[in-house]
C-alpha cells in the first residue's frame, strides 16, 4: 500500500501550532498523577531506577556475606541469616535486577532507536513495572524480618518442601518471584510486538540496530523459558499447600523434575541477561570507532544461535546428579557449542575497533566495554572448562563456579550496563555524566571486581563449596577470602562514586546534548515528550551517518507523522519484515486503572503468601475489575477515513486480524501458554520415566471410561464452533444481533464444562491427587486448562457487555478477536491434553 511515490524529506510547509499540539497530547502527568504515566521515557527511567536500587540493595547483602567470610569461624552473621542473605542476594540480582534492568533498557532505548512515539502497549509496560516494583520491594523487605526465603535461589526440593522448610519463607520466593516472572512476560510481549511492528518505515529487519535484534531474541527467550519456571513454582507451591507429590520420591515424584524445569529456564536466563548487554556493546563500539560494526550479519546469526543453543544445555547444571555418560557427553558438547557465537561477537568487536576510521576513542563507555571484553573472555573460558563434565565434577557447587558466573554475569551484563549509563545518559539527561569521575568509577569497579572474584577460582579448587556461612581455619582459604572481601569493598566504593555522579549530573528532561558521541543510530535524533518531531524514513543501518541532513529534516517535520492526525497519541505500525507503513495505531495515555491492577495483583499474591485467602480473593476480583476498566478505553471506535501521515500517504487507523498489533500480542501470549503446556507435558512424561514398572502406578486407577474424555472433547469442539459462528454473526455497525452474544456465551460455557467434566471423570474413577505423583499430574492438566478456560470466560463476559453496548460489530472486531483466539487455543490445548492423559496409559499399558 505504500508503493506510491514518496517525497521524503517532504517540502510541504508544516501548519502552525503542530508542535504545541503534540506537546499537549504527550504531556507528562505532574504531581501525584505521575503514578499514571505510561510514556516510555518516564516509566522507563523509573523502571531502570528501581532495578538499579535492587542492584545496590543486593550488593549490600553481598558485602555482608563478604564480611562474614573475611576470616574463618567468623560469627558476624548467624547461620540462618546468612542462608537468607545469600538466597535473597541471588534471587534479587537475577529476578529483580538483571532481567528488569534489561527490560527497562528496552523500554527506554527501543522506541528511541526505532523512532517510535511509544511502544504499542504503553499501559501494559506500566502495569508490568508497577507490579514488579511493589512485588520486588515486599519480597526484598522479608530479609528485614526474618521471613526471607533460605533455600538458595534455585530452591531445590525436597529442601523447600514443607517438611524441611515449614515457614512462609519459601512461599515468599515462590509467589513473589513467580509473580515477578509474570511481569517479565508482560514486558516481553510488549518488546516482541514493539520491535516487529513499530519500526520506522524503511527499517527492514536487516537494518534493525543490533540492540533491537537482541531485545527481540531476549523477549522470545523469555516467552519460551519463563513458563518452565512458572510451571515449576506452581507445582512446588501446590505441593507445599495441598500435598500433591510432584517432587516427593516416596509417592512417585522426583526432586530432579524440579531441577530440569528450573534449569530449562535458568540456563537461557543467563543468555537472556547477556545477549542484550552484548548488543549494547555492539552499538557502542561502532560509535567509538566511528565505523559500522564489522560482521553485522554474523552478529545477528550469533545472537540467534546463542538463543537457540541456550535451550539445549540446561543439563550442565546437573552434571553431578548421576546422569548416564551419554547424557553427560551430549550436554557437554552442546554447552561448548555456545562458546562459538560468543567468540564471533568478541572478534567482531575487535575487528570493528581495528577497522575504525580513527583510533578507538578511550572514553568511559569504551573503558567499560574493554573491561567487559577482558572479564567476559575469562568467564567464557572458565565456562568451557566447566562444560567438560569430569572437571565439573570437581568445580560444581564450589567457589570456582561462583567466580565463573560472576565473571559471566558481572562481566557480561553489569559492565555493559555501566557503559550504557555513561553512553546513553545524554539521550535522556541535559548533562552527560562526568568523564573524569567515570575513570575512577571504572578502575575501582574493574580492579575491585578482579580482586574479589579471581581468587575465588582458586578458593574453589582448594575445596571451598559455595553457600557455606562459615569455614574452619587451616584449609588454605583464609587469605584468599580476605582478599575477596577487600575487593568487594572496592567495587562498592566504585558503585557509590557512580551514584554520587548520577545525583550530581543526571538531569532528565530537555534539551539534551546533540549527538555528543557522533553516533549513527536514531536514538540520537532530537526528541521532546512526543519523541522525535517526525518519524524518519530509514535507508541505512546508521541513518545519521549515511542519510545527509536527516537530523534537521526530522526536526523540521519533513518526515512521517509530523502532526497528530487523529488528535491523540499515535505511532506508525509497520510490516514485520520490510518495515512498510501499514496503519496508525491510536495509543492510550495515562490512567489509574493499570496502576490499580498492578497494586491489587501484587496484593493478591502477597496475601496468598501469608495465607490470608479471603482478602487475597478480594484483591484478585479488584485486580480483574481494574483490568476491565483499563482496557475499556482500548479498541476505540474506528474512524471512517484513513489519515494523512505526511508525504501524501494515507493510512487506516483501525485494523483487525493478523495485521493488528493486538492479534500479534495475543499470538505471543498463546506461545507463552503453549510453552507452559509443553513443559507440563514434559513433566507428565518425566514422572512416567522414573516409575516405569506399571503405569498408572500401583494405587492409581486407569483413566475413566471412553464417555468421559469424549464428552469433554465434544464440548471443546462445540466451543470452537460457537466462537466461529459468533464471528460470522457479528452485526453491522449500529445494528444489534442477539445470536452472536449468545454464541459467545455458549462457547465459553462449553470450555468450562469440558474442563470440569474431565476432572470429574478422574475423581469418579477414584484417582487421588495426593497419593501418587501420577494423580497429581493428571489433575494438574485440568488446572492448566481450567485457568485458561476461566480467563476465556472472563474475557467472554467482557466481550458480551461490549456487544450489548454496541462496541463490537462487523468492523470493530479486536475485542472479540482476542477472546476468540484465546478460546480456540484453550480448546486445542484441552483436546491435546485429553489425548495425552487418556491415550498414553493405554498406549504403554
Amino acid at each position, binding site marked *: 500500500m505504500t508503493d506510491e511515490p514518496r517525497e521524503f524529506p517532504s517540502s510541504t510547509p508544516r501548519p502552525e501550532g503542530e508542535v504545541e499540539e503534540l506537546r499537549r497530547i504527550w504531556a507528562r502527568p505532574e504531581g501525584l498523577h505521575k503514578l499514571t504515566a505510561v510514556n516510555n521515557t518516564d516509566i522507563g527511567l523509573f523502571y531502570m531506577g528501581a532495578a538499579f536500587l535492587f542492584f545496590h540493595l543486593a550488593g549490600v547483602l553481598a558485602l555482608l556475606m563478604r564480611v562474614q567470610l573475611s576470616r574463618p569461624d567468623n560469627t558476624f552473621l548467624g547461620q540462618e541469616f546468612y542462608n537468607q542473605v545469600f538466597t535473597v542476594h541471588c534471587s534479587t540480582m537475577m529476578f529483580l535486577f538483571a532481567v528488569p534492568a534489561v527490560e527497562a533498557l528496552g523500554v527506554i532505548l527501543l522506541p528511541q532507536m526505532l523512532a517510535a512515539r511509544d511502544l504499542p502497549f504503553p499501559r501494559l509496560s506500566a502495569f508490568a513495572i508497577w507490579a514488579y516494583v511493589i512485588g520486588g520491594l515486599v519480597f526484598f523487605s522479608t530479609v528485614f524480618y526474618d521471613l526471607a526465603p533460605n533455600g538458595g535461589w534455585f530452591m*531445590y526440593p525436597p529442601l523447600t518442601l514443607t517438611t524441611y522448610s515449614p515457614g512462609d519463607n519459601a512461599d515468599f520466593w515462590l509467589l513473589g518471584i513467580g509473580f515477578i516472572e509474570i511481569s517479565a512476560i508482560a514486558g516481553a510481549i510488549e518488546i516482541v510486538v514493539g520491535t516487529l511492528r513499530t519500526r520506522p518505515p524503511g527499517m527492514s529487519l536487516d537494518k534493525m540496530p543490533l540492540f533491537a535484534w537482541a531485545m527481540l531474541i531476549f523477549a522470545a527467550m523469555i516467552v519460551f523459558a519463563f513458563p518452565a519456571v512458572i510451571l515449576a513454582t506452581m507445582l512446588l507451591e501446590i505441593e507445599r499447600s495441598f500435598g500433591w507429590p510432584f517432587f516427593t520420591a516416596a509417592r512417585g515424584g522426583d526432586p530432579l523434575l524440579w531441577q530440569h524445569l528450573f534449569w530449562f529456564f535458568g540456563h537461557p536466563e543467563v543468555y537472556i541477561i547477556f545477549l542484550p548487554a552484548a548488543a549494547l556493546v555492539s552499538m557502542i563500539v561502532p560509535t567509538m570507532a566511528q565505523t559500522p560494526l564489522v*560482521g553485522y550479519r554474523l552478529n545477528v546469526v550469533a545472537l540467534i544461535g546463542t538463543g537457540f543453543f541456550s535451550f539445549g544445555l540446561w543439563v550442565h547444571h546437573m552434571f553431578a546428579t548421576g546422569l548416564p555418560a551419554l547424557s553427560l557427553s551430549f550436554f*557437554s558438547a552442546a554447552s561448548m557449542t555456545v562458546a562459538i557465537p560468543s*567468540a564471533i561477537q568478541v572478534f567482531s568487536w575487535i*575487528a570493528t575497533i581495528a577497522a575504525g576510521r580513527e583510533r*578507538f576513542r578511550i572514553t568511559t563507555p569504551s573503558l567499560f566495554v574493554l573491561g567487559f571484553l577482558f572479564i567476559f573472555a*575469562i568467564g567464557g573460558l572458565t565456562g568451557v572448562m566447566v562444560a*567438560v563434565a*569430569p572437571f565439573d565434577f570437581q568445580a560444581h557447587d564450589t567457589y570456582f563456579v561462583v567466580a565463573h558466573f560472576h565473571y559471566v554475569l558481572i562481566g557480561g551484563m553489569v559492565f555493559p550496563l555501566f557503559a550504557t549509563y555513561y553512553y546513553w545518559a545524554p539521550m535522556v539527561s541535559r548533562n552527560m555524566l562526568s568523564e573524569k569521575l567515570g575513570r575512577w568509577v571504572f578502575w575501582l569497579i574493574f580492579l575491585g571486581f578482579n580482586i574479589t572474584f579471581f581468587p575465588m577460582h582458586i578458593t574453589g579448587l582448594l575445596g571451598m*563449596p559455595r553457600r557455606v556461612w562459615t569455614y574452619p581455619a587451616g584449609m588454605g582459604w583464609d587469605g584468599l577470602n580476605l582478599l575477596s572481601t577487600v575487593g568487594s569493598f572496592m567495587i562498592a566504593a566504585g558503585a557509590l562514586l557512580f551514584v554520587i555522579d548520577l545525583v550530581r549530573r543526571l538531569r532528565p528532561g530537555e534539551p539534551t546534548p546533540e549527538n555528543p558521541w557522533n553516533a549513527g543510530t536514531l536514538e540520537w535524533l532530537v526528541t521532546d515528550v512526543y519523541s522525535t518531531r517526525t518519524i524518519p524514513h530509514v535507508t541505512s543501518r546508521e541513518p545519521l551517518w549515511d542519510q545527509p541532513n536527516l537530523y534537521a529534516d526530522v526536526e523540521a517535520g519533513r518526515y512521517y507523522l509530523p502532526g497528530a492526525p487523529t488528535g491523540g497519541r499515535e505511532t506508525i505500525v509497520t510490516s514485520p519484515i520490510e518495515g512498510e507503513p501499514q496503519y496508525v495505531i491510536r495509543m492510550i495515555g495515562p490512567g489509574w486503572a493499570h496502576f490499580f491492577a498492578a497494586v491489587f495483583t501484587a496484593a493478591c499474591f502477597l496475601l496468598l503468601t501469608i495465607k490470608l485467602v479471603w482478602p487475597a480473593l478480594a484483591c484478585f476480583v479488584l485486580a480483574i475489575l481494574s483490568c476491565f476498566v483499563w482496557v475499556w478505553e482500548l479498541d476505540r471506535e474506528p474512524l471512517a477515513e484513513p489519515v494523512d501521515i505526511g508525504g501524501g500517504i494515507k493510512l487506516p487507523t483501525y485494523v483487525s486480524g493478523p495485521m493488528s498489533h493486538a492479534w500479534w500480542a495475543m499470538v505471543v501470549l498463546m506461545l507463552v501458554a503453549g510453552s507452559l503446556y509443553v513443559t507440563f507435558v514434559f513433566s507428565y512424561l518425566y514422572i512416567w520415566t522414573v516409575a516405569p514398572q506399571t503405569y498408572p502406578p500401583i494405587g492409581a486407577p486407569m483413566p475413566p471410561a471412553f464417555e468421559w474424555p469424549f464428552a469433554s472433547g465434544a464440548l471443546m469442539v462445540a466451543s470452537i464452533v460457537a466462537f466461529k459462528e459468533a464471528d460470522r454473526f457479528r452485526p453491522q455497525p449500529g445494528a444489534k444481533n442477539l445470536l452472536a452474544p449468545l454464541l459467545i456465551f455458549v462457547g465459553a460455557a462449553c470450555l468450562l464444562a469440558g474442563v470440569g467434566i474431565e476432572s470429574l471423570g478422574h475423581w469418579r474413577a477414584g484417582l487421588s491427587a495426593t497419593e501418587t505423583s501420577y494423580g497429581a499430574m493428571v489433575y494438574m492438566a485440568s488446572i492448566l486448562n481450567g485457568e485458561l478456560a476461566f480467563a476465556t470466560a472472563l474475557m467472554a463476559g467482557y466481550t458480551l457487555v461490549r456487544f450489548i453496548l454496541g462496541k463490537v460489530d462487523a468492523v470493530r472486531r479486536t475485542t472479540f478477536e482476542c477472546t476468540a483466539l484465546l478460546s480456540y487455543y484453550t480448546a486445542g490445548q484441552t483436546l491435546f491434553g485429553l489425548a495425552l492423559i487418556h491415550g498414553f496409559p493405554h498406549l504403554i499399558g
Partner: protein
Amino acid sequence: MTKRAGIAARAAPLLLASCGGVQSSLSPQGFEAERVATLFWVMTIGSGVILLGALLAAGIAIYGPAGWRRRLGGEGIILNAGVYLPVAVLSALLVYGFVVLRATNPPSGIAATKIAIVGERWWWRVQYRDGAGHLIESANEIRIPVGRPVEIELTSADVIHSFWAPKLAGKLDMIPGRKNVLRLQAKEIGVSRGQCAEYCGGAHALMSLYVIVAPEPEFEQWLAYEGGAAAAPATEQTREGMRLFGANGCGACHAIRGTSAAGVVGPDLTHIGGRMSLAAATLPNDEAAIARWISDNQHIKPGNLMPPYRIFSDRELSALSAYLAGLR
C-alpha cells in the same frame, strides 16, 4: 611487563600446589582426582594462551600500526578466530573430556570395596559390610584401602546432599529416591577432608567428613575391629558415663553395639572415640569437645537435630564424655 607476567605464569602452579590444603582438588591422592587435575592444568594453560591472543588482538586493534589494524579490521578475523579456531579447539577438548570421563582405573579385575553413605541433615551415615556381609555402621568418616577400587553407594535420607572428597574424586549428588554409585581409587595413603557440596539447608556449612586412606592390611584390620562391639568401660567414671547414657535416653537415637543403646536416628557411636572429629568434622574429638557438644550443640552447629542436654551436672557431663571418648 612481559617478564613479570612470565614469572607469574610459572609461579602460579607452584603457589597452588604449595597451599594445597586437606580439601584441595589440586593436590590429588586418587586416580580420578589426578586425571581431573591434569585436565584442569591443560585447560587453564590453553585458556591462558587464548586469552593472551585475544588481548593481543584487542591491543593491536586499539594501538597497533595502521597496516596491522587494516588486516584485523575485516570479517576474516571473525571467521578465523571466532569460528574455525574455536571449532577445532573445542572438538579436541570434547574428545579429551570423553576420554577422562570414560577412563577406567588400573588395575581392573580386583573386586571393589563397597561402602554405602547416606546423607542426613547434617551428617553422613556410613555403612560397610564385612566378609560375611554383615552391616557395620559408622558415621562422618570413611576409611578406604589404598590402590583398590572403591564403590561408594550414595543415597539420602531427607534432602539432596552431595558427597565430595576433592582429593580423591569429583562430587556426586545424594538424591532422595535415587541411588548413585561413585567409583574411585586412592593412590596414596593419608588423610584428607570432604564436604557436602549441595546446599542442604541450615548447617550445610558444617557437614564435612574425613577420609582416611590406609594400606589394605591395616584397613582390613580396622574393619574387623570396627565391626566388633564397643569397648566395655574400664573405670568408675566411664561406668558412670555408660549408666548416664542409658538412663537419659541417649540410646533412643544413638546405637552403641554391645549395649542396649540401639537408636537409629543419629550417628552410631560404637567407636566414636576412635574417629578424627565430632559432629561431621565440626569439632576436634576429645572429652572437652564431647561435653561441649552434649550441652551446647545448638551454638556449635545451629539447627542440628539433637537437642542440647543441660540436665547434667559438671561431674556427670565429664563422666558421660569420658565414657564416649573411651569408645575407641
